[in-house]
């Protein structure tokens, strides 16, 4: 048993966890999904702790148990980690199945994590008469019309199921809309001139028309969050005529600083008012 190892496409982690439970094993089950890795710590057949790059304890165990591809290896060894999980393997597997079911249901309601939740009522009335757990109530303030579900997860420290569950309660009550404001545009250099400073991005008027038709941005869009492979930034924007619909004009200096070349593809969405701090600080933590 000390050499139990294999590929997850031939045997599932729930099988492996059950086998280690039945055989009352102590040691570390190391799992690599191909993208990320994690460890389940067993003591006398029970999972007592789990770790992934992004989480620890039960949430890490649930994350690992969802992995369906990659490789695993069990190392029979003494474990000296503080116990963070106190339920039995069967209970853990059942809760994992419950989370799996919830995720499936929530993903059918919110198929895209890049969508932006937008409450249609102001804060005092938004939660009136609704049953939300304390954790779910803490998530709701992040639904600001600018952060997408992934951003909300990062900012609130909650997983996808918790965030989508909070959103689904609001949506079922008719108090939440889901927006998809991302514009996929092609980079072109911004031509600065004697009369025009190159300290902002320029977008076509058509994009402004599309965005300001959406509730959160009716008052106008002054800043945009731009995402490209090397990172996100928040910049001031001006909407201009005469720029082709699928283009974003960026000052050459910024293009150079960000490693962007003409013709590169970027994603943009409205951003809230810039703080006085330099760009990148607003969303740096969310990237």
């Amino acid at each position, binding site marked *: *048993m000390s050499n*139990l190892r*294999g590929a997850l496409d*031939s*045997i*599932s982690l*729930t*099988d492996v966890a*059950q*086998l280690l439970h*039945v*055989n009352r094993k102590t040691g570390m089950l190391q799992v690599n999904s191909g993208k990320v890795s994690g460890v389940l710590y067993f003591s006398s057949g029970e999972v007592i702790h789990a770790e992934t790059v992004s989480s620890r304890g039960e949430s890490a165990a649930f994350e690992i148990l969802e992995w369906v591809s990659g490789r695993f290896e069990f190392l029979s060894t003494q474990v000296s980690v503080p116990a963070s999980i106190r339920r039995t393997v*069967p209970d853990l*597997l*059942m809760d994992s*199945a*419950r989370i*799996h*079911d919830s995720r499936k249901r929530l993903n059918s309601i919110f198929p895209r994590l890049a969508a932006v939740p937008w409450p249609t009522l102001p804060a005092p009335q938004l939660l009136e008469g609704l049953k939300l757990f304390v954790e779910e109530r803490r998530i709701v303030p992040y639904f600001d019309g600018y952060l997408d579900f992934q951003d909300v997860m990062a900012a609130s420290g909650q997983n996808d199921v918790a965030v989508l569950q909070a959103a689904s309660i609001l949506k079922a009550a008719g108090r939440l809309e889901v927006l998809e404001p991302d514009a996929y545009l092609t980079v072109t250099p911004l031509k600065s001139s004697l009369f025009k400073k190159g300290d902002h991005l320029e977008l076509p008027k058509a994009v402004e028309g599309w965005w300001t038709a959406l509730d959160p941005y009716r008052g106008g869009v002054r800043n945009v969050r731009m995402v490209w492979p090397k990172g996100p930034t928040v910049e001031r924007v001006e909407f201009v005529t005469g720029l082709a619909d699928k283009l974003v004009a960026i000052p050459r200096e910024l293009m150079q600083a960000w490693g962007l070349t003409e013709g590169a593809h970027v994603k943009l969405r409205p951003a809230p008012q810039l703080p006085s701090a330099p760009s990148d600080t607003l969303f740096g933590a969310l990237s």
Partner: protein
Amino acid sequence: MSTILVVDDDTGVRQILREYIELEGHRVIEAPNATSARKALAQETVDLIFLDVMMPGESGTSLCHCIKDDPECQGIKVILITGFEGERAWSQGLRSGADIFLIKPVNRQRIKVLLEELLSPESRR
């Protein structure tokens, strides 16, 4: 060599499991339902049972409960097999007392690992 009882009303599933199990060098007894399984258990010394949840007549879950409650069957490992997943299936499976709750599909490698681990000397202790 161990003796494995395969209980499933589907002949095709029984055949596939027989093939995989025999390739690992074990002896297979087949039963198409819970009644036949009880007869086989009364006549043979069985080490491990592959038991389908959904069968006409007595369900695999019910039979599993009885086996696990029977002192004469102590030491027999039970793998309960289902085609359903989700919280309800897991709840039913895990509360049946089965040692392993297996969600289809099965493949040879999966069966091989299960047999190796459940029939290992340390597992029988």
